[in-house]
């Protein structure tokens, strides 16, 4: 009987605390008035809280863009922090509506973990960082080294493949979070720190003496980082896909947060007019307001603005556009047309 009492107690608790069932993610978000956005626990430039607890960064700005499109308010986000290990669980468990967290698109994640990916907001590749004092100039010289890796990421798989295919040995020091991996590297527990090249630059920027460390030239993997949602909600998937596309198209068409009002009223380009909701009913077809993309550009900016503001060459992170330049500039950022 006692067991039943305690079970009953658990059940009541469950009922008392269970939130309302989710119909569609869009309705849920609109009813809640806040977008739950899964981000990392802190990568300089990509997602980090300031002293007041406000989140900033490249990934966070895309969260804000999504919130601007769906709720009309870029501030209406709640950052759900996740380690490499918990991010998909959080998403699948419904604690996050969308994941904007430097997550590599892979077959097994798309198909096996049952996620839906929506294009690439950052083309990255895995690299290595070593202390200058070690005198290493190529990843091929790393035979026998100790390597610090954050667990639960594609990096550990790439690393295993790379060393295996080059016939080299290494000691893997697998650590739960980026911070601890960094601390172990600085303490000298490892010779090498490996993660995506963007992450290396971000991590290096936080060191007391960034110049004592070098990033090796080899990039050993393709890391297309992109947003993800749960399987089974096509409308929501479409929204996230086109939020990303809207920022890229805006940059391509020269729409910026500064000139967006002017463009909406005076542009001659029908695609710009469709994008900004001055023509057609694309917003309604997505289940959003007509000015959804206008809100994004107005409050967050186009892809180029987001990039330069958070991680561009004029920030401490100092990343060049490289592969992430528009296709018209020789890069890979390419949005399907708004038609």
């Amino acid at each position, binding site marked *: *009987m*006692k*067991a039943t*009492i*305690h079970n009953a107690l*658990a059940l009541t*608790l*469950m009922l008392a*605390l*269970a*939130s*309302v*069932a*989710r119909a569609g993610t869009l309705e849920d978000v609109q009813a809640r008035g806040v977008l739950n956005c899964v981000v990392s*626990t*802190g990568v300089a430039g990509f997602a980090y809280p300031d002293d007041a*607890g406000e989140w900033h960064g490249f990934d966070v700005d895309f969260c804000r863009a999504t919130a601007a499109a769906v709720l009309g308010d870029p501030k209406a986000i*709640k950052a759900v*922090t*996740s*380690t490499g290990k*918990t991010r998909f*669980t959080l998403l*699948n*468990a*419904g*604690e996050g509506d969308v994941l904007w967290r430097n997550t590599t698109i892979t077959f097994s994640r798309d198909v096996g973990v049952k996620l839906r990916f929506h294009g690439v907001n950052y083309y990255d590749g895995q690299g290595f960082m070593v202390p200058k004092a070690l005198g290493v100039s190529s990843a091929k010289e790393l035979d026998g080294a100790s390597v610090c890796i954050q667990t639960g990421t594609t990096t550990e798989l790439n690393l295993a493949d790379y060393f295996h295919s080059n016939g080299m040995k290494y000691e893997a020091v697998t650590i*739960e979070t980026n*911070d*601890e991996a*960094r*601390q172990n590297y*600085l303490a000298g527990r490892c010779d090498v720190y490996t993660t995506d090249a963007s992450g290396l630059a971000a991590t290096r920027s*936080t*060191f*007391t003496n960034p110049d004592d460390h070098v990033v090796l030239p080899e990039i050993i993997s393709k890391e297309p980082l992109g947003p993800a949602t749960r399987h089974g909600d096509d409308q929501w998937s479409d929204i996230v896909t086109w939020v990303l596309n809207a920022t890229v198209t805006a940059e391509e068409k020269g729409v910026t947060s500064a000139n967006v009002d002017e463009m909406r009223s005076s542009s001659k380009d029908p695609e710009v007019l469709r994008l900004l909701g001055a023509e057609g009913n694309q917003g309604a077809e997505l289940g959003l307001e007509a000015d959804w993309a206008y809100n994004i550009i107005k409050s967050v900016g186009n892809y180029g603005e987001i990039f330069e503001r958070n991680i561009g060459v004029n920030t401490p992170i100092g990343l060049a556009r490289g592969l992430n330049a528009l296709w018209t500039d020789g890069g890979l950022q390419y949005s399907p047309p708004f038609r």
Partner: protein
Amino acid sequence: MTGPGAPAPYAPGTHPDLPPPVRTTGVVGWARQNLFSSPFNVVLTLLGVWFLASVIPPMAEWALVKSIWTAESRAECWGKMAVPEEAACWAFIKGRLSLFVYGFYPVEERWRVDLSFVLLVFAIVPVLYDRLPGRRHWFWYVAAFPFLAGWLLVGGFGLAPVETDQFGGFMLTLIIGVTGISFSLPIGIALALGRTSSMPVLRILCVLFIEFIRGVPLIALLFVASTMLNYFLPPGTSFDLLMRVLIMVTLFASAYIAEVVRGGLQGVPKGQAEAADSLGLSYWKAQRLIVLPQALKISIPGIVNTFIGLYKDTTLVLIIGMLDPLGIGRASLADAVWAGLAREVYLFIAVFFFVCCFGMSRYSLYLERKLDTGRESEK
């Protein structure tokens, strides 16, 4: 007495004087008895003195004498020392004290945490101190306290709501510890009664539950709470991570309490329950008035030990991403301005836990002596 082989009779004045007995009083006598009673003990004492001499002065120097209490960064802190890194830099802890205490709880709402803490003190006094006048009436308040504090901390019903992911620091430790302790005791007693019940179904269920929980580490259960629990709930429902942790910690502790209480129940002679039966008391009355009071008295040390264990185990929530003091400490160490002061952080947190847990274990010793009213001391 004067048979063959008996010693010769003692003639006064013929026996040599014996040396005076070894001194057993005073400092010298005490030292001789307690420190230098045998060659082996002399060696041990010397080793002990050497150990203390090589540990205490450097530690005192590091932690107190040469330590720095005000600085803005690690570099400044070490700059103030004769040799960098030679002493503790408590300025770091001092600057982040409020983070260690409240976590990310909104600053303007922190009075609610302070108030809950004061209420907690009032709730603990009647439990610990049995000569409080009107103690019986206080228990209503004690029973209501967890809900009152829950309302204060989480908000709603007139207070601004605070998300539980902003909880952190010592406050989080206290929340998990106090909730676990107050709910695991009744559940544990219920499980123990179930395990000793005469109904086979109940007994088997309780045994399965207890042995399952005791067989797996808490961290695995916390992982279950953070990764698997959502699959068990009706589609589209989810609940707060802190709530899941509280439930898991409570269930975990209650299985251990159940075993301790079962030990106590077995220590009560069967005749007591039989006598209660023969007086016509119902099962529940017999348990409540006769058996449990005796059983609980025997199991108090075990129960307090379980509580201490539970309290220490609250640090494990760090691993599923909650910011208990240890989590706050590790996050703070990631700050490039202060990185490298791990010793200070760990020592600070260790002292906090030591004070709490040592206090609890002293209290349990006091209770044990006070309640030792019969049987045990006759042995």
